């Protein structure tokens, strides 16, 4: 190879950082970690929004059952038991609105147990009153005897205790998901550290030579970190993209439980709007989180490599 002119390109790979076979695995491993992280992120955001919805919705609702609603009220002449109960509830502080479910709604409620002909059965069904609470709601302990006096046998059922239990469950799931995310981050950092140490060991001679020529720890660490950062970013982006279809299908499956969210399955395939709507199925915080994953992967790669290389270099004077 003869040449009398200085070569044009700058030979930057003084540390021989072009990866060996083992280091080519790093983006793949980081991709797998990011895939799991994306699922954990979705789980955490989903559990948080579920808990919030339960707390905002169900906690503010009270169900009152009035047996024999059409029978005359015992204490007020000319009104039936249902009207009397509704009047009592409307006059109670802490109650925003009161609404008796219609026959159709009641039949719908009972359909899972009694089939579509529930309304036609000659069962003595109670009236069900949906009560929306305001503020802290009424004093249920004081309300019960007043309801009993107005229409004996009437029962008020608050959802608070169930909501609290379900919310606690959802919060626990959220914490578990965050712990899974933290664990994935820790494992990713561990893998990057091990790969970096292996890379350092292979390049020990080159590092010693460059160190002997006056390279600072910062120079050597930054060269390694730059490579690890790009590899981790590539892997994290790939893993996140890989998780996206899974998340979209999950979002589609949960769409019926989320009022207003469109589902793709059944929509005209190939149409732009349903696809866009489908993409919008994912909540905004999840999109933000997914976009942040490659950045988090890069950051983990950069910081872990900097620390690992600088600690390793301590063995040189």
């Amino acid at each position, binding site marked *: *190879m*003869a*040449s*009398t*002119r*200085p*070569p044009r390109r*700058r*030979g930057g*790979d*003084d540390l*021989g950082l*072009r990866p060996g076979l083992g280091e080519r695995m790093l983006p793949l491993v980081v991709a797998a970690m990011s895939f799991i992280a994306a699922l954990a992120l979705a789980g955490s955001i989903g559990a948080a929004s579920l808990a919030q919805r339960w707390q905002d919705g169900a906690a503010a609702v009270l169900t009152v059952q009035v047996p024999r609603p059409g029978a005359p009220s015992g204490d007020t002449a000319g009104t039936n038991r249902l009207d009397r109960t509704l009047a009592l509830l409307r006059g109670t502080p802490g109650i925003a609105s009161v609404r008796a479910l219609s026959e159709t709604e009641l039949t719908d409620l009972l359909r899972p147990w009694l089939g579509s002909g529930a309304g036609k059965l000659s069962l003595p069904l109670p009236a069900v009153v949906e009560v929306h609470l305001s503020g802290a709601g009424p004093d249920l302990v004081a309300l019960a005897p007043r309801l009993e006096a107005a229409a004996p046998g009437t029962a008020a059922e608050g959802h608070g205790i169930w909501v609290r239990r379900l919310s606690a469950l959802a919060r626990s799931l959220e914490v578990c998901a965050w712990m899974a995310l933290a664990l994935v981050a820790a494992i990713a950092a561990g893998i990057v550290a091990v790969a970096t140490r292996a890379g350092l060991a292979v390049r020990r*001679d*080159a590092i*010693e*030579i*460059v*160190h*002997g*020529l*006056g*390279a*600072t*720890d*910062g*120079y050597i660490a930054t060269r390694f970190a730059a490579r690890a950062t790009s590899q981790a970013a590539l892997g994290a982006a790939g893993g996140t993209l890989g998780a996206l279809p899974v998340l979209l299908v999950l979002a589609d499956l949960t769409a019926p439980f989320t009022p207003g969210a469109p589902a793709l399955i059944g929509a005209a395939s190939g149409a732009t709007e349903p696809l866009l709507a489908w993409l919008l199925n994912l909540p905004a915080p999840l999109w933000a989180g997914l976009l942040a994953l490659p950045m988090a992967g890069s950051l983990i790669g950069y910081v872990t490599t900097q620390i690992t290389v600088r600690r390793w270099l301590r063995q040189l*004077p």
Partner: protein
Amino acid sequence: MIRLESVGLHYAQGSTPGPDVLRDITFVVPEGGFRWLLGPSGAGKSSLLRLLHLAVRPTSGRLALLDVDITLASRRDLALLRRRVGMVFQDFRLLPQLSAFDNVALPLRLGGRAEAQLRADVAEMLRWVGLGKKFDASPAELSGGEQQRVAIARAVVARPHVLLADEPTGNLDDVQAERLMILLKEMNRLGTTVIVATHNEALVARHPGQSLRLEHGRMIEHG
């Protein structure tokens, strides 16, 4: 200026200290001085050069290089100090993945020299050592003598304040060895402190100068 006061060195063997390879070494080489470093194999010449190249720190005594006390210097200061010390290794220590040109350019790039500026210096240095047609050659494509000349070019290209050489003529023919001595003397004349370790008594005889002589890790003659 190089100043050693009662410097000792041993290498660790696992967790225990190994035997002393240098003991109670004391000498001063003034700025711009020239010294032969002489002594039989195993006397400690290479270890002394490693100390002066800051590849190891003394295990006892004090070493000051270019007015920096290296026992007190930070890691960053040591790195910057190494840039002012050129070293020609007996085994060349070239980077196999880089071309001859890039090996020689490395000290300048580490020193932050702009690419446009360093290209002429590197090309001139390679031509001077007779490798003007081998810019792109990798070390594996070069003979032992050619690799040694690349190593010499890399050691001097950044105009170091101190130049250390460990058997620099070992793989060179007489003509190249003489050219190298002319280069070393010229650098010394321009103010570089030069220390050359060698077994080549004929070379020392042709270029008489002050010497440091080591035996069994001790300095038995200096001046």
